[in-house]
């Protein structure tokens, strides 16, 4: 039990801990790591509540993994038994109903939180130099989440599970030449069936751990340059920052409680709010539901997919729809370079600030289109909203960055905070806080 020999600098910040901790930390600097990354880690002092959603998403992922692992102990991934095994969890497993409703609504919470997190990044320009890879890793997480959620939705093997699996896997048949082969591979046969369910179950268990790994990289990239902030200017020294603990541990705890209140309301009082009634009917390949709709968090992509009702330049509409639906997410990878403005925060960008709010409205409109039967006005709205979505990223983002004259940026976070505090007394609260 030797502590570090005299003369050797104590390993990082394990100073102040007992002998045993210091002994371990000298050899395996775990405590120092935690101390450095989650206690002393400097954060800009002006972060507002929009910055709560990152850690919140991480906590929901933990909830999803814990409930998911226990559910997997009771679930049977077989086409003949899956539906009944889920009902068995609901009725006969101790607190099985609680586990399943948490897991089911946790998916909705996860996406809600991540979409807000993503929008915060867009609004405050968190993807700009030097955080491009941080952003790209976030988009990778989103893609993995979508894949995981889709396969999880298939597992109860209800009508909507079965038909959503059929519709979504069929998208790959739009790929020229090899499309049908890929679909057969996905299905493990010539139709959605037991092999499909088995491989989806396996992947649904695997992907969350890959998400955890990518989140590790996401945090590594985050901690390299620290958080962006509502002003979008760099921190200039200790006067601009506060340590993560206790300031953000307590703020995130408060945010977590508020999120849990919403989560608990869904779980205990509206557990099937986001669920489709059809998914309480066992999967039946002979009966197609009237409207096949995905879960709410996938509706905008579904709307984009269905909006191309015509062939263009000899390319089948279906293929264009598939490309655009995937493209609507893939385009996010290029946002750091599509946005030509050097100013990060939309707060100092008079035009982009308004334009950035039109995007969520457009996405919600797409969600409505995705939920509605594709006929009449719905199709037109879907086409306009799809057009606008890509217009936003491909035209407005580069163009506004060039044309707009941003407002002058504050010199430092410290002075801006002091100014805001001064204004607070004179002219009411500062915007955004």
């Amino acid at each position, binding site marked *: 039990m030797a502590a570090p020999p005299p003369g050797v600098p104590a390993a990082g910040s394990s100073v102040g801990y007992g002998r045993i901790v210091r002994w371990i930390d000298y050899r395996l600097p775990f405590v120092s790591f935690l101390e450095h990354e989650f206690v002393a880690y400097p954060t800009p002092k002006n972060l507002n509540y929009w910055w709560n959603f990152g850690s919140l998403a991480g906590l929901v992922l933990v909830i999803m993994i814990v409930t998911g692992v226990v559910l997997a102990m009771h679930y049977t991934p077989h086409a003949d038994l899956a539906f009944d095994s889920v009902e068995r969890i609901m*009725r006969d497993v101790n607190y099985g109903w609680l586990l399943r409703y948490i897991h089911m609504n946790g998916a909705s919470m996860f996406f809600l939180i991540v979409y807000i997190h993503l929008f915060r990044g867009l609004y405050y320009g968190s993807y700009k130099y030097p955080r491009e890879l941080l952003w790209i890793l976030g988009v990778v997480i989103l893609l993995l989440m979508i894949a995981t959620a889709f396969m999880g939705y298939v597992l109860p093997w209800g009508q909507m599970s079965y038909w959503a699996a059929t519709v979504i896997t069929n998208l790959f048949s739009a790929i020229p030449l090899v499309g049908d082969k890929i679909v057969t591979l996905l299905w493990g046969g010539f139709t959605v069936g037991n092999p499909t369910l088995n491989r989806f179950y396996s992947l649904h268990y695997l992907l969350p751990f890959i998400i955890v790994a990518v989140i590790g990289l996401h945090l590594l990239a985050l901690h390299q340059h620290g958080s962006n902030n509502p002003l979008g200017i760099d921190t200039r020294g200790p006067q601009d920052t506060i340590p993560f603990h206790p300031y953000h541990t*307590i703020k995130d*705890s408060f945010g977590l409680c508020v999120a849990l209140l919403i989560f*608990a309301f869904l779980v*205990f*009082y509206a557990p099937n709010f986001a669920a489709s009634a059809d998914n309480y009917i066992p999967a039946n390949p002979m009966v197609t539901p009237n409207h096949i709709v995905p879960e709410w968090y996938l509706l905008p992509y579904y709307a984009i997919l269905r909006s191309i009702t015509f062939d263009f330049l000899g390319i089948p509409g279906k293929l264009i729809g598939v490309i655009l639906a995937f493209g609507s997410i893939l385009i996010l990878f290029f946002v750091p370079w599509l946005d030509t403005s050097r100013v990060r925060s939309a707060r100092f960008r008079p035009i982009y600030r308004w334009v950035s709010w039109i995007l969520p409205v457009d996405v919600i409109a797409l969600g409505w289109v995705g*939920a509605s039967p594709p006929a009449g006005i719905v199709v037109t709205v879907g086409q306009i909203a799809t057009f606008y979505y890509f217009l936003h990223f491909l035209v407005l983002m580069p163009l506004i960055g060039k044309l707009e004259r941003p407002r002058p940026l504050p010199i430092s976070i410290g002075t801006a905070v002091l100014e805001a505090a001064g204004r607070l007394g004179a002219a009411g609260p500062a915007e*955004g806080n």
Partner: protein
Amino acid sequence: MARGALAVLVAALGLICAVGAQAQEEAPPAPHQQWPFEGVFGTYDRAALQRGFQVYKEVCSVCHPVKHLYFRDLEELGYSEDQVKGIAAQAQVADGPNDQGEMFQRPARPSDRIPDPFPNDQAARVANNGALPPDLSLITKAREGGPDYAYAILTGFKDAPAGFKMNPNMNYNQYFAGHQIAMPPPLSPDQVKYADGTPATVPQMAHDVVSFLSWAAEPTLDERHRMGFKVFLFLIVATGVFYAAKRKIWSRVH
């Protein structure tokens, strides 16, 4: 940013309402009924559940299975263990093979699943002019409108309007999509005799049996509502404590 967020929220709510309105176009919406299990403090009415089970047993169970229910589950309706044993013993279930390698029939036990009325779906179709009576143990969760819809179907039988072309063996129901349902009107006044003396009107029986089916679809609702209330109390206190602590700690900043 807060103002923008509010505007987006309003837009979202508007669209949700629009989607709701759209979803109702296909069949007339089922009128809302009062159910004691609604709301934060909602619980099932045991007396209604027992009457509803009686209606299910004497009327519905002739054609409709409740695949996810076991006799033992009936204790939750307020029946004693012995009463459940008695109810189970009235049904015959297949068991075996015995020492001779033969399957045999025996009276059901509480640990048995409530047996289906037909040996398989095909037999059910043959007995019902080709229609398959759906499983009822999840019916209130498996239909848009839930209990209100089930009640509306049970009470929604009418004579077809003049000029409405009915297919053979179909019945007119104002709340069923397409208005033609294979199920004949299942309830008629005084069809069952309630032990507690409740008059067995059609609305009463429909209300009771839908209560029973709601329990069958969601037997853990009472526990869920009770636990939710405690969780909420805890979270509200925790939110307050954390908010106060946050204010206190952050007062050092600036």
